[in-house]
């Protein structure tokens, strides 16, 4: 960080004054103006759709996502599905939601297959750092949790889904603990609750800055002890239907043997996660490599309507330097403990505990207006004044609570307890997704969806800690509903996919192949054998 010496001095020089000064708050109108001017969702690099259930709406989608939604099947046009596997329930996805659903189905007597593109656990869940929200604090309630999340989501949330989310918080924490998750506790043995951005009370439970890892490794361990059959390294290429609109299976790509596998299932659950690896507008991402909007792409071909699928969360604190860490997450919990966001001039320009979309917009404004810090590689960001944590909470506090931060930064010779780190918003979360009802049913009978792949519960901006709760609560809910309402077995055809293909041929001749499956940077050759 030798190049930044004089700039860091400005941060150090203003630290003492900033320490006691109140955080600069924005009014609702100022926040809205910031969003409209600087938030990437408003950048105009969008287009409307001309094929499928969201065609003709006055909604505009990021181009990269629109191209996937209107993509052509990877399967050959004359593909004839014959069942290689017959199962009761097929779960697509390998993250927290898929695993929670699998656990909910254990003991039901049903056969369950879980197919995932990577390995079980390789997901955005495992990368979540800051925590999981649940109304467990003094004076807190699921209503307060609801009110915070509804305001944070700009009132665009599906209030029925959000009520379920908030009410399920305490029970889900109880379940996770019974399953084997260790959350941080205070000295008197109670759960330690952190304040999340946009929350009115401390409500975030954590396991240091490895909360998602803790939840995912426990869920995975538990799933491996069930009778669920795992099909790893097997991305779904297409959903299958019975010719009458019911989803009845899926075509997988068994990558180890390079062949397609057709699964006939009485129920299919899409728990395929988000889309950060589409790298909208060239942004970095905090997402795992599988986050390529596969579930949205496949469900859309089955006539499933998408809600707020044009709304993305750019997490305010993505790493901006060193370049090898670009886009990786710096948890919000560090801000919640008092690390301020500071511009090139050493000014604390906005409260770091405002809503994520507002804070990201404020950071982008600073950079666009020349008050950001330009790094030797050309990228720009603002400071996150991490040394404040030890000043406020005692020497060693940063390292004790955020070991992951040190594990990532120290190899580059940066000690975040001594030096501030550079951040810039990173593509973090797909706020919207597939429309579901309160039982996680999609518009297509036979197809359920849960977790980040779905839309509605978070409105157009999600609060910290609500996604880990979402994946466990709705994953389990989907599993339980499937268990109790299992459809009969139906034939498998590519009828819906074929119809979508014909419509594409008429209206969008230049369609790319989809789903993307892997980030472009990986240069994966998708050439499937028989």
């Amino acid at each position, binding site marked *: 960080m030798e190049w930044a010496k004089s700039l860091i001095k400005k941060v150090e020089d203003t630290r003492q004054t900033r320490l006691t000064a109140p955080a600069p708050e924005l009014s609702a109108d100022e926040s809205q103006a910031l969003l409209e001017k600087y938030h990437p969702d408003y950048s105009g690099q969008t287009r409307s759709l001309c094929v499928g259930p969201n065609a003709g709406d006055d909604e505009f989608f990021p181009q990269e996502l629109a191209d996937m939604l209107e993509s052509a099947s990877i399967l050959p046009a004359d593909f004839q599905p014959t069942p290689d596997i017959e199962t009761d329930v097929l779960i697509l996805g390998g993250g927290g939601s898929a695993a929670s659903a699998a656990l909910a189905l254990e003991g039901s007597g049903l056969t369950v297959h879980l197919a995932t593109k*990577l*390995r079980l*656990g*390789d*997901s955005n869940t*495992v*990368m979540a750092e800051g925590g999981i929200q649940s109304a*467990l604090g003094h004076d807190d*309630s*699921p*209503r*307060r949790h*609801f*009110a915070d999340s*509804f*305001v944070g989501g700009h*009132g665009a949330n599906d*209030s029925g889904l959000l*009520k379920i989310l908030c009410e399920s918080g*305490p*029970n889900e924490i*109880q379940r996770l*603990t*019974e*399953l*084997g*998750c*260790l959350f941080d506790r205070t000295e008197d*043995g109670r759960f330690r609750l952190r304040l999340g951005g946009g929350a*009115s009370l401390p409500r975030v439970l954590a*396991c*240091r800055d*490895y909360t*998602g*890892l*803790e939840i995912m*490794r*426990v869920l995975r*361990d538990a799933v*491996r*002890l069930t009778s669920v059959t795992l099909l790893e390294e097997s991305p779904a290429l297409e959903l299958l239907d019975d010719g009458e609109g019911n989803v009845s299976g899926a075509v997988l790509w068994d990558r180890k043997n390079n062949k397609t596998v057709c699964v006939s299932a009485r129920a299919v659950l899409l728990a395929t996660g988000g889309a950060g690896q589409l790298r909208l507008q060239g942004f970095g991402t905090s997402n*795992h*490599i*599988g986050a390529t909007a596969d579930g949205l792409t496949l469900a859309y071909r089955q006539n499933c309507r998408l809600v707020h699928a044009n709304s993305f969360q750019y997490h305010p604190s993505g790493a901006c330097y*060193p*370049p*090898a860490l670009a886009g*990786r*997450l710096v948890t919000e919990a560090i801000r919640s403990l008092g690390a301020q966001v500071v511009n090139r001039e050493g000014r604390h320009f906005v409260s770091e505990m405002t809503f994520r979309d507002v804070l990201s917009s404020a950071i982008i404004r600073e950079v666009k207006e020349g008050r950001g810090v330009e790094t030797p*590689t050309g990228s720009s960001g603002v400071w996150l004044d991490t040394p404040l944590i030890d000043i406020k909470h005692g020497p060693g506090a940063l390292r004790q609570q955020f*070991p*992951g931060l040190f*594990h*990532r930064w120290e*190899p580059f010779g940066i000690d975040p307890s001594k030096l501030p780190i550079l951040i810039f918003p990173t593509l973090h979360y797909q706020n919207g997704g597939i429309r579901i009802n309160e039982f996680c049913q999609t518009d297509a009978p036979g197809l359920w969806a849960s977790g980040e792949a779905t839309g509605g519960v978070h409105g157009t901006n999600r609060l910290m800690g609500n996604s880990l709760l979402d994946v466990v609560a709705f994953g389990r809910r989907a599993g339980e509903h499937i268990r109790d309402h299992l459809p009969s077995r139906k034939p498998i055809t590519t009828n819906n996919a074929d119809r979508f293909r014909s419509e594409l041929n008429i209206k969008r001749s230049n369609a790319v192949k989809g789903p993307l499956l*892997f980030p472009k*940077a*990986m*240069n*994966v050759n998708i050439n499937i054998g028989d």
Partner: protein
Amino acid sequence: MQVDSGITLVHAIWSAGRSEEILTGCDGGVCGACTVSIQLKEKPGKTIIDLACCRLVEEGMTVFPYPVPPVPPVQPSSEPSADTLRKAYPTLDRCTKCDACTTVCPMGIPVMESIKRMQAGALEEVAEDYTTCIHCGQCRAICEDRVQPHTMGMWVRRSLAIKSSAETTVPVDEDASRAEQEWAYLLSGDRKTQLQHCQQFRQTGKVGI
């Protein structure tokens, strides 16, 4: 392989068009998929185990992908102790204290010391040791005595959590009529009214102004 400097091994392998050769999951240091064995130019005899997504490329380094497949876990216990751990994992006492497991851990966990703590029943400390474990499996793969440090670490953590869950119950909702009244307030009216009510309620925790 010729690649740009300043990038991680994973990105280097991708950019060379060889992504099939490296198992990758999160590309963020927490999933444990992309473990590799590395030899540096200046120390050719010494093998380093690291995560390809966290390690930068260096001139002249030799890299071999070294993923470790998982093994089936053992059901955790609600009565964790050195004895119940021994029952679950009978190889615990085969450890010869060679310390190879500590050397290969990409997360810097004091693995062998933690095995000693397992043998002594200091399970709270064991749980702390494995807080950052990503279950890449390297400590298990290198152990010639078939000790399974990371799966035992998981067993200890899960078992302790299960035990604690029996001792602390999460408080469940209080006053049902108050809850009902608050929900009615937050959910009534059009979206604009709901938003106003939520804004008001989150500030005071009370219904109405």
